[in-house]
């Protein structure tokens, strides 16, 4: 093997491991008895742990592979760790839940692994074609996962809706890529930056292309007005899938947005910043206001996840200012971690309260939790406070960092919209707490070790990392985006 290929292979080593592991698992799984599918879950988890070890071992050495198409740097390492840990949470949440709602497909775990591979690839891609490939690799397993509760109608509906709109957005993304290729003659992020200002370069085409890229990725991270699918898909998909999707797809989407915008489009910031500004403002306002009207916890959390996409997008607005862009990256990464911890805490409780046939998903089903199940209620309360952004939770520190970035960029108005919508969000997050602690009821709750473990780790992490956040700050600010 030539040494260049060798370096390339080393760069994507975690992906290779994960892919091979998944393929092997697909074969091995056939031989397990129907009653012993738990083994698949365990093996899938093991695969994630092995990959995690490899990723961590590789930190600190940026590697460029395949002629600059793939980059394994601190940025992608950060996200890979986040995604792999989210995958572990996704498995832990599903372990008992799938059996309970009578989903007997152990492919869940394998599809999850494939989706994570796609998400990790997305964080490493330094070429629009590569991003497209990753987008498909992460999306297709998610389409299937959303519908894995077949023959449940809601789940099928979620799947088909997600697929149709997802296919659309992929198409838009490719179209954008084509236009950019037309404008610059290349799809590599480095090439695009280099092409700006050369004689054959076409600014209008590049602008339109970048807009289409924003639309395509904006769909993945559920930014208004490309969010229409979110409530239905989050609601219809099995809750464990929703939990994983909410965190993973968002992290991957923002990874691509960050890398593309900061590396390839800094010269377009005068045109794109107002667009991002408007999208962020719209997303925060619409997501939070609509969430107030929800009585179903899954739909409420779906709208809340839209709102959080708005907060994260806010940090991208000043991406063109060289002095702020590193803060943009670090604050988005930081917030993604905060969002992951908080989300898993919340979704774990939702899964515990959910009963068969979509029972136990109304807000009123949480009445009396504070008295009957103090631990789970505390987890949910922590999650809600962290989503609101109340200190000393991780959610607060994360939001603080986002607002910091926005203020540093000089967008006081946007920050103002951000804090005001946070106030709106306090209303519906607190409602959950009010119902749990201040109303009496007989909640039905599933008690299961993995579920409790995930819930507790996520909640304790939300508080403790919130207080002792220095390591996370350091780690996130190391993940500087550079051209290779």
């Amino acid at each position: 093997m030539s040494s260049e290929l060798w370096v390339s292979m080393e760069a994507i080593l975690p992906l290779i491991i994960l892919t091979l592991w998944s393929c092997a698992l697909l074969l091995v799984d056939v031989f397990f008895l129907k009653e012993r599918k738990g083994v698949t879950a365990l093996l899938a988890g093991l695969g994630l742990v092995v990959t995690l070890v490899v990723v961590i071992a590789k930190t600190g050495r940026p590697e460029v592979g395949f002629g600059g198409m793939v980059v394994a740097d601190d940025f992608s390492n950060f996200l890979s760790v986040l995604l792999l840990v989210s995958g572990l949470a996704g498995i832990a949440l599903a372990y008992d839940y799938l059996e309970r709602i009578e989903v007997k497909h152990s492919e869940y775990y394998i599809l999850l692994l494939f989706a994570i591979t796609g998400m990790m690839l997305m964080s490493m891609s330094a070429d629009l074609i590569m991003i497209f490939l990753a987008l498909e690799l992460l999306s297709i397993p998610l389409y299937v996962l959303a519908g894995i509760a077949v023959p449940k109608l809601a789940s099928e509906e979620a799947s088909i809706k997600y697929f149709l709109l997802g296919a659309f957005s992929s198409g838009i993304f490719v179209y954008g890529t084509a236009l950019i290729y037309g404008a610059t003659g290349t799809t590599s992020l480095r090439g695009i930056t280099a092409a700006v200002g050369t004689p054959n370069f076409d600014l209008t085409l590049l602008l339109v292309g970048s807009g289409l890229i924003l639309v395509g990725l904006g769909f993945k991270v559920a930014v208004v007005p490309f969010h229409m699918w979110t409530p239905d898909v989050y609601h219809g998909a099995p809750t464990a899938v929703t939990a994983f999707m909410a965190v993973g797809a968002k992290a991957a989407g923002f990874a691509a947005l960050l890398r593309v915008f900061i590396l390839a489009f800094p010269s377009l910031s005068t045109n794109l910043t107002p667009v991002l500004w408007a999208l962020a403002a719209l997303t925060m306002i619409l997501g939070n206001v609509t969430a107030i009207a929800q009585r179903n916890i899954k739909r409420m959390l779906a709208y809340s996840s839209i709102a959080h996409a708005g907060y994260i997008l806010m940090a991208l607005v000043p991406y063109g200012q060289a002095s702020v862009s590193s803060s943009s990256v670090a604050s988005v990464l930081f917030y993604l971690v905060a969002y992951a911890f908080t989300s898993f805490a919340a979704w774990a409780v939702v899964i515990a309260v959910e009963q068969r046939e979509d029972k136990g998903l109304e807000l009123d089903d949480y009445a009396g939790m504070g008295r009957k199940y103090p631990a789970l209620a505390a987890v949910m309360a922590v999650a809600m406070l962290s989503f609101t952004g109340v200190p000393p939770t991780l959610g607060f520190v994360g939001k603080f960092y986002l607002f910091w970035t926005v203020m540093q960029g000089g967008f006081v108005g946007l920050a103002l919209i951000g804090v005001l919508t946070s106030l709106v969000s306090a209303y519906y997050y607190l409602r959950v707490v009010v119902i749990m602690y201040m109303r009496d009821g007989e909640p039905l709750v599933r008690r299961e070790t993995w579920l409790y473990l995930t819930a507790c780790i996520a909640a304790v992490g939300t508080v403790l990392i919130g207080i002792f956040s220095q390591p996370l700050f350091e780690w996130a600010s190391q993940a500087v985006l550079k051209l290779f």
Partner: protein
Amino acid sequence: MNFLLNPLTLVTFFPLLGVLVILFLRPEQKNAARWVALITSLVTFVISLAVLIQFRPADFALQLVVKVPWFTVAEWVIYFHLGIDGLSILMVLLTTLLLALSIVSTWKAVEDRVKEFMVFFLLLEVGMLGVFLAQDLFLFYIFWEFTLVPMYFLIGIWGGPNRMYAAVKFFLYTMAGSILMLLAILWLGIQQGTFEMPELIAKGGIPANLQIWLFLAFAIAFAIKVPMWPLHSWLPDAHVEAPTAGSVILAGILLKMGTYGFLRFNLSLFPQATMQLAPWIAGLAVIGILYGAAVSYAQKDVKKLVAYSSVSHLGFVMLGLFALNAQGVQGGILQMVNHGISTGALFLVVGMIYERRHTREMDAFGGLWKVMPVYAVLTLIISLSSMGLPGLNGFVGEFTILLGAWGAGQPGASLGTPWFAGLAAIGVILAAVYILFMFQKLFLGPVTKDENRNLPDLNWREIVTLAPLIVLIFWIGLYPKPFFDLMGPTVNHLVASIQSAAVAGLP
């Protein structure tokens, strides 16, 4: 790790130890939870006394400072930075004292979910002490917002019939104010390169037109907490629904966080804006004094009456602070302490009668003096202190404030007209009216209701709860010098620096 043994760190976080112990108790072990909470709060009080002993009143600078880097955002270092000076020492002592007394008062009043109650109560103490001690804006904000959470639960779980509404209203109102402050803090930190109070004050140099905006962003947060008219509407709801101990802490300490915020942050960070806006703030304060008194008079529910009287009393505090002279500010700080003692005690007294009769309607009582003489005498002392009878603590505070406001009424001084002091003086008379009216309705005349004939008088636990407050009422009323001595040098320094900064900023 030396900073952990600093008395300020110790006093702030000691209650957490109690929280940890209580978390390991079973829900049935109610008495154990109570005892652990009580002992924790008493030890915290003792630690705060140790802080007092180490405190050098003659020195206006921050003392017993702890400053450890907490985390780094970009190039900005955020510190875990605590310090105490003449502005906060009395607040810290008031907090630790009232907290211990409130816990005693819950002994029989709280029977449901005692464990959680005590956990939230002690967490609240951590938050409040942190607010009074934090010298880093970010740290301050964390403690400030954090106090919302336990208080929200205290109102929402152990409160009256309309508790959910009151709890959410309390939370949203307060948060609405503080998020604007968060933006102002961020702006300050990014522009000035630091979040440390001493450095921010030393740096100064914020243009006057920007100062106004920043001042307002901070002021709204604090004004809601105080609460200043017209931002007070959450207060009656929260007070009426909160359990007794919650009301004591809410009135006694949480409201002081607002006035303290003005004192610590607005006055010293934005001196020019302070000078410019002082008449406006004083105007709102006077409206609050008169409005609070008038509305108090109209109440039928004793607790609501006391709640509205807080609006009036805190109007005095605000007027004193924004007189911007040594007398006014000192009077304001002393009145903060006085209000904590008197109104805290009034809420305790109201809670005691509520425990016996489960109503707070004034019409349900009458002639209680004959039935419960000890209770009546103690209530009389507390009521008289609240309305500012000479010889008791309220008088000293209000008199000093009026003196300061009058002095600030000279042409060229902060208020520019003596009318503020003049109108506020009417509030003193009105206070006498509604307080005496309440006292008469409850205690004087014949016993009209049969239910009241056999009410037991105060027991030892209840007397012990009130006794320290009564002692303080007389002490401050007769010999306030030690209290003024504690704050004097810091206040004089603050006032002088505001004057000079404001003069320097003039075109």
